């Protein structure tokens, strides 16, 4: 059959048979319905796009529905086509064995060995060692440019914030905070004046809380002003703002990992994974009645790190 005589070909009628069609006319109509539905979805999408220049929930839903119908129907149609109209078969194919025949492995090993021998690397120690040295030193120009990515971590940045002696407290919009602005049990997030940007907020945002003079204890008195205390709101666990304040229990909650801090007891951690108290900021009120800091925090704020004392 394969070795057909070329001379015969012209005289012999075509031997090729058409494979009989599988499936019924109804199956064909059923599949075609989905293809038409897909086309309809495509037009629907296009018209939605054409008509609506603004996106709102309704328009977005129309986009989703039309595109879903367009693509989904095409997919359903294709699968039905395969299932209903294409002949089903169970074909079998042999797997070729994995791994090369031993003689191939042998030959490859031998070729490699001969190449290594030809290079002389095994018998020329000076060559070998100098190459090893050069390869090792190649790491230097590869690694060095990484240093350009950022500054050296400095103690000044790690251990200090923007607060300094006499910094006035402002709200995020820059408004100064005055004695008497807070209701009893009131709480507000404050920043050092002129430092309300994202960079400063990452380590210098502070919660000023009016806990009332009765709630100021020996532990917090030195840094408090009358009934007011100020704490770093950067969680000592992973650095999220621990600023959900429960007024009844005087507990600060960090919503990231549920560390809780007791404000009355100097923001000592009472639950969750945090290990250290939120650092307290020593505060005062200046002659004009504005809240000021007496200085920076006496310890680093936020998450722990290797060089932290």
């Amino acid at each position, binding site marked *: 059959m394969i070795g057909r005589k070329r001379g015969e070909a012209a005289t012999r009628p075509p031997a090729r048979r058409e494979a009989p069609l599988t499936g019924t006319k109804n199956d064909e109509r059923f599949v075609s319905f989905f293809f038409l539905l897909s086309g309809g979805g495509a037009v629907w999408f296009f018209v939605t*796009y054409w008509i609506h220049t603004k996106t709102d929930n309704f328009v977005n839903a129309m986009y989703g529905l039309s595109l879903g119908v367009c693509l989904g129907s*095409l997919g359903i149609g294709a699968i039905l086509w395969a299932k209903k109209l294409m002949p089903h078969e169970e074909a079998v194919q042999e797997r070729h064995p994995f791994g090369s025949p031993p003689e191939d492995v042998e030959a490859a090993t031998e070729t490699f060995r001969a190449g290594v021998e030809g290079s002389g690397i095994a018998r020329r120690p000076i060559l070998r060692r100098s190459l090893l040295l050069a390869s090792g030193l190649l790491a230097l120009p590869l690694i060095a440019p990484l240093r350009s990515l950022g500054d050296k971590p400095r103690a000044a940045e790690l251990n200090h914030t923007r607060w300094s002696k006499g910094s006035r407290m402002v709200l995020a919009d820059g408004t100064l905070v005055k004695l008497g602005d807070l209701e009893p049990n009131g709480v507000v997030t404050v920043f050092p004046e002129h430092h309300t940007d994202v*960079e400063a907020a990452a380590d210098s945002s502070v919660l000023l809380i009016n806990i009332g003079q009765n709630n100021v204890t020996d532990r917090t008195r030195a840094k408090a002003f009358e009934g007011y205390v100020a704490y770093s709101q950067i969680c000592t666990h992973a650095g999220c703002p621990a600023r959900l304040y429960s007024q009844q229990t005087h507990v600060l909650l960090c919503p990231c990992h549920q560390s809780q801090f007791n404000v009355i007891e100097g923001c000592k951690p009472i639950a969750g994974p945090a290990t250290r108290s939120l650092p307290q900021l020593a505060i005062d009120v200046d002659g004009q009645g504005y809240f000021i800091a007496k200085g920076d925090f006496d310890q680093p704020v936020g998450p722990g*790190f290797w060089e932290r004392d």
Partner: protein
Amino acid sequence: MSTDDAAIPAPGAFDSRDPRPEPTGAGKAIGGAGRFVDERTGGAGFFRESMNKVFPDNWSFMIGEIALYSFIILLLTGTYLTLFFQDSSAEVVYHGSYLPLKDVPMSAAYASTLNISFDVRAGLLIRQIHHWAALLFMFGMVVHACRVFFTGAYRKPRELNWLIGVGLVTLGMLEGFAGYSLPDDLLSGTGLRIADAVMLSIPVVGTWVSFLLFGGEYPGTHIIERLYVIHILLVPGLILGLISAHMGLLWHQKHTQFPGPGRTENNVVGERMFPAYAAKGGGFFMIVFGMLALLAGLFQINPVWLYGPYSPANVSAGSQPDWYIGFLEGALRIMPNWEFRGWGYTIPFMILIPGVVIPGLMFTLFALWPWIEQRMTGDKAYHNLLQRPRESPVRAGVGMMSLTFYGVLVASGANDIFASIFHISLNALTWAGRVAIIILPPIAYVVTKKICEALNRKDAEERAHGYETGIIRRLPSGEFIEVHAPLPAARETHLIPVETTTFARLSERARDELVSVGSGPTDSDAPGSGNTTRRGGLVDFFVKRD
């Protein structure tokens, strides 16, 4: 061979005396294009071999396809989004059409994300398809990994593809995290803040890692640009390379199959790539894409405009990462507050262990599992037939143990949500997580192993004595027994052999045999062999013959 073989036409020349009717229209165009490519690449043999490639069919083999298709959709939608997204932390004032944030200062990245969501026509749809597809990509990979694990598909010779798969899951997590950090909204910034704390927790080099990534002290002004390069070039490039290797190995090694009639370790039984398998695969891609479009149109995902621009001083209650980062979040939440401080140094174990050590161990064990199993069983043989989970009770037990460990972490990552929905104390749930992570995994191991062993005993019983028919019979002695019937015999199959080498390389005898399978007159003339006639026609269709 006759002497006519001397008259083999020169390469590229075609026999004008071919008796078949000349193709017309589209057929002619396709044939012409194919000929053009073949004359320059010699690809006809490979093309035919590919169309003839046999794929075994099982519903569970589609799960990996979902991940693959999601990745393609991610590339398509992601490319569109890059046309509108600005990778910049520079502060701008928003003037777009979302009124609640009008005149609010924010980063250019966040403003451009709002722009995509409200002012780019169909931008919100594409953004939401992209996000839903990312969730589905990770979900598809994880469930696919479970399928491969419980059926033992990773056994020799497929350990390399298992390793590549573990690499893909890891990169997928990194890619997803980098992606949802880009909009620079309040939620994504919170995630970055935690990632920074995890970096800082690494002893000795932690602060260096953080300072180099952020370009200085957190948050710096470079992170958006850097994450952008990582998200749209570096990691997707690696994923694309690994997926190509994954598919290439699958193609070369051929797919595993479940045992069945005619199926052996040395063959592969199923449908050929073309046309049915290709139609099903292409159709399934369209369905996945269509489902994602429906989800994106009807179900809101990551509404960044509600979260507001990022500020390190703000956070909202109920902050949740995307689901595939949930296990890390859960680990951070249930870790006890351990920290080492001394000699001027600090090691924050409460971050280091859940953020670095536990995921490191999990993924190391995940990657090394095929070798661990080989060490335990001493099984170094090739395996092309899959197992049912029950066939290896220890493996199934280890799998359920690992999933339970993972599940407790994921659930703990949402413990504040559970606490508020079910009005349970949050602290109680934290403790429940701590206890569950210790005691539930071993219980899962023992229970799964026992169930598998019991199922195996039942199978052995049925093989030996048949299955229970439910018919109760009373014996003359008065005794009642249940009638057992033998298991139905394996159905008969007619498998169409498909050769694995290109036609030209087959020996003449092999060619004759191959062709006769489809066209042998004895086959189609035999009574009751209507199917074989059709199959014969099909072989005609695939196997070139005169």
